[in-house]
């Protein structure tokens, strides 16, 4: 048996190498730098530098790219404009997410547990907290997640897709478990996320195996030609295709594969929720596009049922159940389920426009998500003695926030209106291009439902706005809430809010750039 070394194209793979290499380096930092304070600073700088460098490399490649793109690593990876656009979206989410990871309260409290392994309420935990220990591993974990997601958007091989899936999922499971407060809830969310994630990975892998069995290859393009070549409609191919897509729908958080979302969103440390909400959805949508348009395109008609049913179910359940939530993170979790439905609407009938509309949609959705959760990190409960405690996530606690802190509440209102798709926010433009994509392929009834769902969804977004601005705080609750301005979280809020307004009012240039990302390079059949 001979083994040929694959040719490695360094330039197109550079962003991945930078991010994942920095993650590996960061683990060494954990071992070498002893003082927690220094270590945290080194990790933060390393992460930011790596992400910025990768973003720079992506932009340079975008500018230099001629033709559709390049196929690298023997067809395992395709770096085309589509891939670069998604990489940029993920890197921006990663950057803003990292800033939130590093944000601290005025009292210097982090969002993460001081010792992840200590069981909640134990002496060990108290001791660790008193010693000022910190879990700085969150930074390398986040880098691994970003790197894995970037790969996830660009791979064109089922096996490599699975590897990328695990590379970004495993760090997320750990991150979800690291909340400083309400640790049981955090552990619970993480465990559920992990178990169900493992389950969906198995489903995905099973589907990949079936497709390999039927077509004899794991390369996307090869699977595509294999399906065309198969005589009639093979149930094995269909089942395999459905299993692969379902594995991705799980990551997207679409009904009925959504059950992990509310728990993970609620339990995770809020910065992790922000990053996960923004980035995981983007990565899942990217992979879904590549799988559907390249590998499974011959099955477009058969799979359209799957997309229609899950889209409708997601929009309906997400919207309706969000209406009755009383916990803000759970409400946003259900809202994210509804958004998974909107994303699927754009994919109905696999229109060409969806290929560039979805990166834009996920970009603005990610910005609003990061911004909204960044606001949540700053609204805190205050104890009897005046100390600032954990986040105030019960909706009722947000009453009168607009009086107390008009800018913060105003920014939150902006993010919510963007979720709702109100004109002059970026969310409107995103919905407009995404739904426009569906209309172009006759996905009419689906858009109709989406429009009605958006209108209904506006209720629970606006309910929070009303609560913040038009509801008075009960007398005895005046001092129960503290606004804890953390400079880094504030940076995230400002950046995302400005971006949401700009992209809502003058989306032109950015939209034009995304439009160029609307071409998928279909690699050679392997």
């Amino acid at each position, binding site marked *: 048996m001979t083994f040929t070394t694959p040719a490695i194209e360094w330039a197109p793979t550079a962003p991945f190498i930078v991010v994942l290499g920095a993650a590996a380096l960061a683990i060494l930092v954990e071992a070498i730098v002893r003082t927690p304070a220094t270590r945290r600073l080194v990790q933060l700088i390393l992460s930011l530098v790596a992400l910025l460098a990768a973003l720079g490399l992506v932009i340079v490649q975008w500018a230099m790219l001629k033709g559709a793109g390049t196929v690298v690593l023997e067809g395992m990876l395709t770096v085309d404009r589509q891939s670069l656009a998604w990489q940029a979206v993920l890197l921006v989410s990663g950057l803003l997410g990292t800033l939130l990871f590093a944000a601290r309260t005025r009292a210097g409290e982090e969002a993460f547990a001081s010792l992840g392994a200590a069981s909640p309420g134990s002496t060990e935990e108290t001791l660790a907290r008193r010693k000022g220990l910190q879990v700085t591993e969150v930074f390398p974990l986040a880098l691994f997640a970003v790197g894995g997601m970037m790969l996830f958007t660009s791979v064109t091989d089922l096996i490599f897709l699975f590897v990328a899936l695990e590379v970004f999922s495993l760090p997320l499971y750990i991150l979800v478990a690291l909340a400083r407060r309400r640790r049981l809830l955090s552990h619970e969310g993480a465990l559920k996320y992990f178990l169900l994630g493992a389950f969906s990975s198995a489903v995905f892998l099973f589907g990949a195996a079936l497709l390999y069995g039927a077509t004899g290859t794991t390369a996307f393009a090869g699977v595509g030609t294999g399906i065309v070549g198969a005589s009639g409609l093979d149930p094995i191919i269909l089942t395999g295709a459905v299993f692969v897509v379902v594995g991705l729908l799980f990551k997207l958080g679409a009904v009925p594969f959504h059950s992990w979302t509310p728990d993970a969103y609620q339990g995770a440390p809020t910065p992790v929720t922000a990053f996960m909400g923004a980035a995981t959805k983007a990565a899942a949508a990217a992979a879904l596009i590549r799988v559907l348009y390249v590998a499974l395109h011959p099955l477009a008609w058969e799979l359209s049922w799957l997309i229609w049913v899950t889209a409708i179910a997601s929009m309906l359940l997400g919207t309706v159940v969000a209406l009755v939530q009383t916990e803000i993170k759970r409400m946003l979790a259900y809202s994210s389920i509804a958004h998974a439905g909107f994303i699927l609407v754009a994919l109905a009938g696999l229109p060409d426009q969806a290929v560039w509309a979805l990166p834009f949609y996920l970009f603005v959705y990610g910005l609003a998500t990061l911004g909204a959760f960044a606001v949540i990190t700053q609204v805190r409960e205050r104890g009897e003695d005046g100390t600032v405690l954990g986040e105030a996530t019960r909706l009722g606690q947000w009453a009168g926030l607009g009086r107390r802190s008009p800018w913060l509440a105003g920014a939150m209102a902006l993010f919510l209106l963007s979720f709702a798709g109100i004109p002059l926010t970026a969310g409107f433009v995103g919905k407009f291009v995404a739904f426009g994509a569906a209309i172009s392929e006759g996905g009419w009834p689906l858009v109709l439902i989406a429009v009605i769902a958006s209108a209904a969804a506006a209720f629970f977004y606006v309910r929070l706005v009303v609560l913040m601005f038009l509801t008075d705080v009960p007398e005895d609750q005046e001092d129960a809430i503290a606004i804890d301005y953390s400079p880094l979280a504030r940076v995230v809020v400002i950046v995302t809010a400005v971006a949401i307004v700009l992209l809502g009012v003058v989306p*032109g240039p950015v939209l034009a750039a995304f439009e160029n990302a609307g071409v998928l390079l279909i690699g050679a059949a392997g």
Partner: protein
Amino acid sequence: MLDLIWLVIAVPLVSSGILLLAGRRANAWGHWLGVAASASTFVVGFGAFLQMLGMAGEERSHAVHLYSWIPGGDLQLDAGLLVDPLSLTFVLLVSFVGTLIHVYSVAYMEHDPNRRIFFSYLNLFVAAMLLLVLADSYLLLFVGWEGVGLASYLLIGFWNHKPAYATAAKKAFVVNRIGDIGLILAMGLMLASFGGVDFATVADGVSGASTATLTATGLALLLAACGKSAQFPLQSWLGDAMAGPTPVSALIHAATMVTAGVYLIVRSAPVFEGAPDAQLVVAAVGALTLIMGALIGMAKDDIKKALAASTMSQIGYMMLAAGLGPIGYAFAIFHLVTHGFFKAGMFLGAGSVMHGMNDQVDMRRFGALRAAMVTTWVTFGLGWLAILGVPPFSGFWSKDKIIEAAFVGEGVQPWILGGAALVGAGLTAFYMSRLFFMTFHGKARWTDDQHPHESPALMTVPMIILAVGSAFLGLFLAVGDRFAHWLEPVTGHAEHHDPVMPIWLIMTLTLALVALGVWEAWRRYGAADVPTEAPDVSLATVAARNDFFQDSVNRGVFERPGTHLTRTLVYADAAVIDRAVNGGAQGWPKTGEAVRRAQSGQVRSYAATMVVGLVIVVLIVVLGGL
């Protein structure tokens, strides 16, 4: 001036922002900034108007390109403004009446600690309303549409410390969202069938579209118009919207915003020309609402709610006219303008009465206010004569034309539509006279602590100016069909059609019914004593007092099924998924043991949900594919 028209949107918008952000230090001068911003829009609008008067008829459509909003291959969207006689008419109406109401509010809101915020919202409203009427595409119109909705919502709930007022604001929001769905759907249909949502593309695309598409688009637009203009079946919010401060009721819920639906229909004339069925529905909705509003107006004792019902009814007239096609468009807008003057004037009069009567709104507690508030009585009286359609006051010129136009046609249609319009005129005369007599005539039925007095000049001067408009504007615009000629470039030239009855007969019948209505109202409410408690009367009156049970209908048809759907889905989600989590969240200070036990059970059921989902999906796809 035409190219500077964007200033009328930008100036009040900036002013609104300044007022909102400036904080308390702006309390001393903030309201005057608001007035100045509003006045400047009138100056610019009037300049544009003079410039347009100097142009020939066919040149009177001026596009102002702002920038490319959503550029793209198939879906190019530009942000641009369209200045033509129709939009300029609205600009002048909104900025003129708006400025007067700003001035009035300076005095009316004097003792309110949040007066600066109030002016910020008013400016926001002016900016959004002008954007709505100046937009050159449905999408930009939609931005203004949402903007006026937001301003209206904020202003209805301005005194939100009273829970009922906050509820009213919420109701307006909910109903308006239903209307918005109509507009979004219409835009979707336009994108799909014409490839664009600007007025020009739609007008060009109409000839190639099927009648079914146009009818669907027209009905979706009508739904939008019904939501915004409080037409049947979405009328229920307007009465509750009276919770807002009275100047708001005058500006937004009488003169301008609620007429946006009529604007939408007239602006969409090309669509409706290709869809006669949709057009007929528009006319029918208008006719139904005008009768319904009049009946509700007859039964209300709250002066503002009676006026709100009257607004609903008068907009019904406009809708009816807009549904008649080219012969009606000009009259719809004409009536909209005169109504803007006399109804705003009467609302301000009602505000003045409330100002002098400790915010009392129950007409059964008024009476004999004529002597105490002479200016209010005279200005209100002129508005009253105008809405009655007594010659030569404004309403006569606009409303009678609508009644005549409604009688044009073939078959039973003119008899039904015309009959409704005719009967409506009599009913209007009755309920408006009832309101007028109960308030200003008869015996004083005040409570002990009330000492009616005339309002300050800042309030009466705007009322006087509006009253002059109520008296003479109609005549001025009607002479030589000035107004119809002015609008002709937009609405098209209407062929003259003869009504099914001679015009002199229609006019005589109308005036006779009006006289009858006034006489009956005088007999009951002017000459006779009015009880201070509403008497128990017929079922019909009770029905009208309760807005024909619209709230109950809404509850039965929309709210209950909605609640059940929510409960079912929440239950389905909770039974399988959520219970343990919520339990865990609430009981989290308890021992970890209980949570952990619940947890392990639940993950199994989570996975079960996924497996079931997976199996169903596979079955659908595989069986569907075979």
